[in-house]
């Protein structure tokens, strides 16, 4: 193997751009491997593990860009390095930096503010260790902050949120993937209709699912405020959650309030209850995985507790008297025709999620019925999977979890890991159902069909080869106004033989129905 590389000093690209570019040049079949990383300590360690750390990278620091290529021949490596260099030059040009012939792009918040003095929101998606300082700076300049970045300590989160509150500003995040402000979707969000439902959510994917379902059901969103997943922990005290809730209570455009969270600290819930007391607006709340009996909400109050994300959207739509959409019609899914075609070896559910919230939701929905059930992010009745790269029995995987994303973009953008896994599962004669989620919208893969359809076809063929009939069930989160157009995506998936469900909850229950029927068949025989 030949390994060679280049250093581009003081040149920075965000990791998503670099990973997408590396992927474009990676040809594992031809023994060609490419890495494009900033020379951080972590990345140097990753290169070392991959035997791609070369001498000329020593002494390089955070602001240097490293390109390294491992291949079979000198020539292959050299030409690939050259191509990557050209591609990077091109990126610089089209991004409007030096040489672009476009408008000058400010390099810092300070000069960004000189270009746009009335800016009111800074959206940060740079690496966590830099993001904290930048967020402070933004707050000091009177800007609200949406912190998409992760890898930020809870101590920093608390300090930032206290600082924001003191200044009457929002600090959404960290790890806040989604928000909708005044009808405008930010970061990973869907183009939903404007309307009268206000959302505060500690889960980005949850927010996407509920806002899309409400929009598809004829409703609309006034604002959706993302808080980051830890906001309702006792340490953070729900600072952003309570800020958002108070503002939605006061907002004249918001008629119905939706709260989405993981189990919350009881001290924080008490504050939520107190805020809600004087409000007359109907509230729908989902506390995923919480003990419903322990929640401090009266059944006679204005708070309705939802059981899952779909239920959340339904209750909100019902509060608006919009009950004639798809969600309110009976699920006509019949597992029998599929089960009939399955071999007697086929037993198991293999759920491959790109959304972590969906993975937990599905486990909570079917964990008890389908036990034993394994996951890399177990909740409820599930157990930890011993080797996440190896499937046995019923598996529900969150492919957005760190062990799968190391050095790669999120699986909502980069399908490669999941695509491979779909084929692997199809080749396993014990696989009965592959359950998938597909999230559309801004930030997500812009052309999901071109990648997913061939894989589905391949999986079906592979299953046939081992004597199986593979059921593929997929929920599609998004709207027709999204750049990918939900209706088109759904039609194409159905044409490819995929069962498409309107929500993850429903897709999960359909998958479980197949498994249950298979179990009965076994018991009956």
């Amino acid at each position, binding site marked *: 193997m030949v390994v060679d590389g280049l250093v581009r000093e*003081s040149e920075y690209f965000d990791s998503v751009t670099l990973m997408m570019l590396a992927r474009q040049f990676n040809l594992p079949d031809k023994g060609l491997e490419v890495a494009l990383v900033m020379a951080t300590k972590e990345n140097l360690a990753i290169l070392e593990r991959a035997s791609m750390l070369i001498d000329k990278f020593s002494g390089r620091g955070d602001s240097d860009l490293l390109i390294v290529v491992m291949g079979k021949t000198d020539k292959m490596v050299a030409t690939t390095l050259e191509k990557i260099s050209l591609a990077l030059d091109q990126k610089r040009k089209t991004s409007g930096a030096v040489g672009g012939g476009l408008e000058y792009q400010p390099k810092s918040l300070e000069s960004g503010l000189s270009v746009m003095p009335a800016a009111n929101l800074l959206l940060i998606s740079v690496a966590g260790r830099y993001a904290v300082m930048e967020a402070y700076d933004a707050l000091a300049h009177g800007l609200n902050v949406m912190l998409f970045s992760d890898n930020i300590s809870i101590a920093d989160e608390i300090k930032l949120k206290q600082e924001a509150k003191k200044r009457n500003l929002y600090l959404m995040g960290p790890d806040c993937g989604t928000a909708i402000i005044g009808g405008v979707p930010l970061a990973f969000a869907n183009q939903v209709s404007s309307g009268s439902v206000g959302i505060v959510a500690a889960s980005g994917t949850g927010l996407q699912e509920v806002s899309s379902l409400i929009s598809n059901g004829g409703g609309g969103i006034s604002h959706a405020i993302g808080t980051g997943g830890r906001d309702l922990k006792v340490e953070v005290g729900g600072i952003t959650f309570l800020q958002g809730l*108070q503002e939605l209570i006061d907002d004249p455009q918001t008629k119905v309030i939706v709260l989405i969270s993981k189990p919350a600290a009881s001290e924080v819930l008490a504050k939520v209850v107190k805020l809600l007391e004087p409000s007359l607006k109907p509230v729908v709340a989902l506390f995923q995985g919480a003990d419903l009996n322990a929640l401090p909400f009266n059944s006679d109050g204005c708070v309705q507790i939802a059981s899952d994300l779909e239920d959340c959207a339904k209750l909100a739509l019902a509060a608006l008297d919009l009950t004639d959409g798809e969600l309110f019609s009976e699920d006509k899914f019949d597992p029998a025709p599929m089960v009939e075609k399955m071999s007697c070896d086929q037993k198991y559910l293999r759920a491959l999620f790109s959304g972590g919230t969906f993975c937990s939701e599905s486990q909570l929905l079917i964990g008890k019925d389908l036990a034993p059930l394994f996951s890399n992010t177990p909740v409820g009745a599930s157990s930890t999977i011993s080797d996440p790269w190896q499937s046995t029995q019923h598996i529900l995987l969150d492919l957005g979890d760190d062990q799968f994303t190391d050095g790669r973009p999120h699986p909502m953008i980069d399908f490669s890991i999941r695509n491979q896994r779909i084929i692997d599962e199809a080749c396993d004669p014990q696989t009965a159902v592959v359950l998938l989620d597909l999230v559309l919208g801004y930030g997500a893969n812009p052309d999901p069909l071109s990648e997913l359809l061939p894989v589905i076809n391949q999986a079906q063929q592979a299953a046939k080869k081992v004597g199986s009939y593979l059921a593929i069930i997929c929920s599609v989160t998004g709207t027709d106004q999204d750049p990918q157009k939900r209706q088109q995506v759904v039609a194409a998936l159905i044409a490819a033989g995929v069962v498409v469900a309107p929500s993850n909850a429903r897709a999960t229950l359909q998958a479980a129905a197949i498994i249950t029927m298979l179990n009965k068949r076994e018991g009956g025989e």
Partner: protein
Amino acid sequence: MSNLLKEKLQVINMGIPAFSDALKQQGIATTQLDWRPPAAIPLETREYISSQSKTIEQANQQAVQKLLAATPHWVGMGRALDKIPGMKSNLILHSGPPISWQRMCGPMQGGVIAALIYEGMAQTADQAHALASSGEIEFAPCHHHGTVGPMAGIVSASMPVFVVKNESGANCSYATMNEGLGKVLRYGAYDSEVIERLKWMERELYPALQAAIEHLGKIDLKSIIAQALHMGDEVHNRNRAATSLLYRHLAPAVIESCSDRGLAAQALNFINGNDHFFLNLSMAACKASLDSAGNTAGSSLVTVMARNGVEFGVQLAGCGDQWFVGKAPLPDALFFPGFSKEDANPDIGDSSITETCGLGGFAIAASPAIVQFVGGKSRDAIDYTLQMYEITIAENSIYQIPALDFRGTPTGIDVAKVVEKSILPFIDTGVAHKEAGVGQVGAGVLSAPMEPFLKAYQGLAEHIKTE
């Protein structure tokens, strides 16, 4: 409560460009930043500096006001020994931060050899070499004596120097006369042609110019620089307009004050034939301006950037005479025919004093004639200048850039901005051959290295702590 939900959204996006593309598609006012990570500074230093930001800001305003208010004038001439404070007959000044004879690069050693032969202290290069390493000759940076020198920056006792006075601060700076291009002392050449030219300059050019400047009293350099910026100079790599303007001041004065017509013609022809004649005055003007901002406690303003061909040194207004140094980089250059990067010496010279003062590379948008150094498009030059506003404290009130609608040049480098934004000062430069005696091999541009700025940032924190 925040007004976010009530206001029209205006977003600055720091990071993934797709997020701002999506917002722009929806017609939302969005500014995408071309963000880059800060230089590797210890978090505690950054937090300390940011805790002191008010003090630093105040000190910087004080320092930059002095810099902006400076009014450098060429007021006279004299021999280095008579004019430069602390000059001695066995002292040789050089460019950049302090360096011993042994560690000097080829072109600087060549310049020293030329100076020793010129002073009559050695007859041959070998003798000069022996003398330089004997310990009898002392070496010091020009900057320690209020002086600046391009490239090797060599100044010896009997060389004539310009005296430039900042009339608003009453401080002076000094520089030798520019010898022209080709084989010259400042690029480390020391053959007889070089020495003869220097001797002629001392014997004939110097008296002619001295008489002329006495006749005129003084020449306002700030005014010449301001006009030259409107005429396509950035007064570092291009001095054609400034030299022409100077010539218009000088010509009548030389004619009136010089009784020997032949001598007057020779002096004026020499200036006329050297597009860079103004460079040394431009540098001295910048030095006099920056010195007035020096010694401002707590200020992160950069008062000196200088290279000795081995190291790149930086001084701050808030750190007295302390040097912060790092390895000098190789310039990215256009080479004269027959030469390549292999021949190039690492960056050398005090001429980066022009950038320190907001000219040169900082004002390259004013100089479309030399954009081939930065990729050939005038848009590139504009982008480089725009980038320099990100690391400077003020915009000059007198020096302006026509292509930017007469915006003031980016003036007063703030070391904190350099380090925290990871944006390096952009410098125009000439390139010397790495071996003594060869001379100039090209010209180009480069970014200053980060190391001296990192050290200066930390040095500033220590200075503030102990003050």
